[in-house]
């Protein structure tokens, strides 16, 4: 068992300033994860060379991998910091743990990035059930256990951004909306009430930056911390948009 853990962290004080790297060496504790390492640095922000520095800024909240806040690149792979257990990381690389912010989003500070484009995408695809209002008018539609079991995995998307980070189509030359929002289109289009505005969602993902931008690299599904079948959703969305395009053309 190691006595110390070495972390090399990419830092950036402000969006407009330059990046730099710092190395920290912290005492090893059993069942540590990347969050507890960052907590230890916050409590005593001293680099491995013994220089006092500022605490590393990072995003987190639940620490149970259900809020989606703590996504970052850890040893070069995007994942949630709370479930990144130090023992497992040291098996990947016994020398150090390397932390970098996600690269596909604007940097706020250190490991914090701005993921508002993902929330904007949920607006674009109208990811909600268009109910009449909130007065009591009885129960919702009846849903079979099979439908529930198909929908449930899609409902667990926490807008963490891993799928966008891993996607080669998310780059400066493209305005691809990303797998997370497309999967939400399928969730709501398959719901008995949600499907009443399915055409609006399909229109949205047929616009520039929509589903046709997907390059089928299938990286998204590999990095999703919740094992959401994102590529199945994209395939379904492809079929739904094709049918929608034909009906739209026929009814012209």
């Amino acid at each position, binding site marked *: 068992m190691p006595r110390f853990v070495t972390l090399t962290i990419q830092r950036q004080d*402000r969006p407009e300033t330059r990046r730099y790297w710092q190395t920290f060496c912290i005492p090893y504790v059993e069942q540590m994860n990347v969050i*507890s390492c960052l907590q230890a640095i916050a409590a005593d922000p001293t680099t491995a060379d013994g220089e006092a520095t500022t605490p590393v800024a990072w995003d987190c909240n*639940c620490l149970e991998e259900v809020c989606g806040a703590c996504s970052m690149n850890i040893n070069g792979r995007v994942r949630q910091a709370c479930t990144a257990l130090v023992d497992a990381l040291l098996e990947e690389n016994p020398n150090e743990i390397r932390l970098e912010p996600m690269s596909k989003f604007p940097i706020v500070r250190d490991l914090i990035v701005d993921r508002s484009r993902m929330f904007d995408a*949920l607006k674009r695809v109208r990811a909600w059930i268009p*109910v009449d209002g909130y007065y009591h008018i009885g129960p919702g539609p*009846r849903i079979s*256990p099979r439908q529930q079991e198909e929908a449930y995995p899609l*409902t667990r998307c926490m807008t963490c951004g891993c799928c966008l980070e891993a996607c080669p189509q998310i780059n400066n030359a493209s305005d691809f909306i990303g797998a997370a929002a497309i999967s939400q289109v399928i969730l709501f289009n398959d719901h008995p009430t949600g499907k009443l505005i399915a055409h609006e969602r399909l229109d949205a993902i047929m616009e520039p930056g929509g589903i046709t931008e997907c390059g089928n690299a299938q990286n998204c599904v590999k990095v999703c911390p919740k094992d959401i079948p994102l590529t199945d959703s994209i395939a379904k969305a492809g079929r739904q948009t094709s049918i929608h395009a034909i009906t739209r053309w026929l009814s012209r």
Partner: protein
Amino acid sequence: MAEQRVVVIGGGLAGLAATMRLAESGRTVDLLSLGPVKRSHSVCAQGGINAVNAVTRQLGDSEWKHFDDTVYGGDFLQHQPPVKEMCDWGPKIIDLLDRLGVMFNRTPEGHRDYRRFGGTLFPRTAFAGATTGQQLLYALDEQVRWWETENRVYKHEMAEFLGPVIDEQGICRGVVAQDTCTMVIRAFPADAVVLATGGCGLIFGKSTNSMACTGAANARAYRAGVHYANGEFVQVHPTAIPAADKLRLMSESARGEGGRVWVPRDPKDARSAREIPDGERWYFLEERYPQYGNLVPRDIATREIFSVCREGYSVDPHGYAVYLDLTHIPRADLDRKLAGILEIYEKFQGVDPRDEPMKIFPGVHYTMGGLWCGYEVDPHTGGLKIGAPANQMTNIPGLYAIGEADYQYHGANRLGANSLLSCIFAGLIVSPSINAYLGNLSRKTAADSPSSLFEHEVERHQEAEHRLRNATGHENPYTIHRELGETMTRDVTVVRHNKNIAETLSTLDELTDRYRHVRLSDAADWANQHLAFTRALGDMLELAKAIAKGALLRDECRGAHYKPEFEIPGPDATDQDTLRRQARQWCERFRARNEQWLKTTVAEYHPAGPAIRYEEVDTSLIPPRPRTYGLKGAGVIDDVWKVMEAERSTAEQRYMGSAGAPQ
């Protein structure tokens, strides 16, 4: 006249429910949150949400019974009208969530499935896998996003609440908040403000709460004059997974689906859990509480697990833990009903709980106490008068509190799966109350208040920040926080002794002194988390004092507040006559205790320390009775209590009948 605006602080279930209902009623809402609302702590709720349903009704259940279970479970410390109203709304709220697309688990016929939770005998809990809180929060988040596109809701998702703005008449006219990225401090004028700012688990160091749950927002309201009620009532969840960074919740649904809690009968048994045969396992909850078994209310399960470990039965050689065992349940059932929470255990502990019993121990979980708020009774129903301005309003006019931040619904102990209900209920009903309040507001809108009111408050917060940023002491805020958590967890949680609580109070004063000499390691004026944490720590210390002082003064046992010195020992005689006599004495002591302590603790902030006073509890609907789950002699106490109550009501009637009668 400018438009009247509402500010909602906090985007968890309560804040989102309030926001969407306010938007529907035509209001414009500014929604402030520390982060994207989709990441709020409500996502952590796993088990489900309670309401009476078609099946339980046919088993003899009713809204009244849900109400009765809730106040009995809460040891009668709640005002009853709001609780009754909440339980009456339960089925309607589940229908609404169902319409909003929550993927509740389904029966083969396509109806919503329900499970049983602690503190009730009916399967009243609707659930969506093991991530019900996440599913509910997302459904409301989606609705609020829709209102954003309609320009009825404006989200400010990097905003930290620093305090309310209260005018010279004592009326709330808005808030001051800081952008957590640009660090700009500004005022948000508003005609009504809703605090939906959650609980304060971080005061106890490690807890099951999210990192945002410092309680700082509530403490800031308290320091600005809002009363803080029943602070000493903090729920410790019986089953959490101990770890270095936090305690992760293992939902009560693990027991609801048949999970069994045990330790080896022989405390020295060194075999692995699976090698220990059933006969050599001590299922202590099932043995001691045959009726409820593993589903006793949370405070009881917590104390039992705690004391079994203290007696030397812990299954963890380095600390305290007992087994929570699901291995007898078919894997397919576990995957279908509990996959989400089992995954947590697997991911964080590296062990599959389908094969190996989990190791768990209690952890601070829920804040029953909170910001004081009012209500108005509907005399026709005994519940709430919906749309009365007083509902959920704090003692500051125009300032409302809802969700875990308020104190209204759970009394001395919260039942599992009632928190999601109380959060959404309070969120939904606060909207008509605010609309009524705004309609009655005689004076101009907040936007017409003198700008000096807001400028002054902004300057005050800027100066406080400046002082903190330039402090030149030597104290590390994280060390102070660790010590705060240690003293609070040790002395103000499961078992409380006055001597220890008094020591904690002086420790809190010492920590406050040291806090004045704190030194920041980051002076940045951009996304300075260190500054925000250190500022919150100062607020946590003040709230901790209210919690500890409330606990010190309350000399009784009630719900989560357990002081062995003041426990009334249960009757234990073997012959029936003595047993009944003992039970009668027990009931008399219980009644005397209730006369003294069936009161709401109300803390008012003073720089020198909290001032505590007590208010009567409204028990107009269900007369308080002994809470005897698992108590020694429970049966005879219940019997004797009924007889004594009958005698008393006869006496009361006789007296009332004779009053004013001709002599």
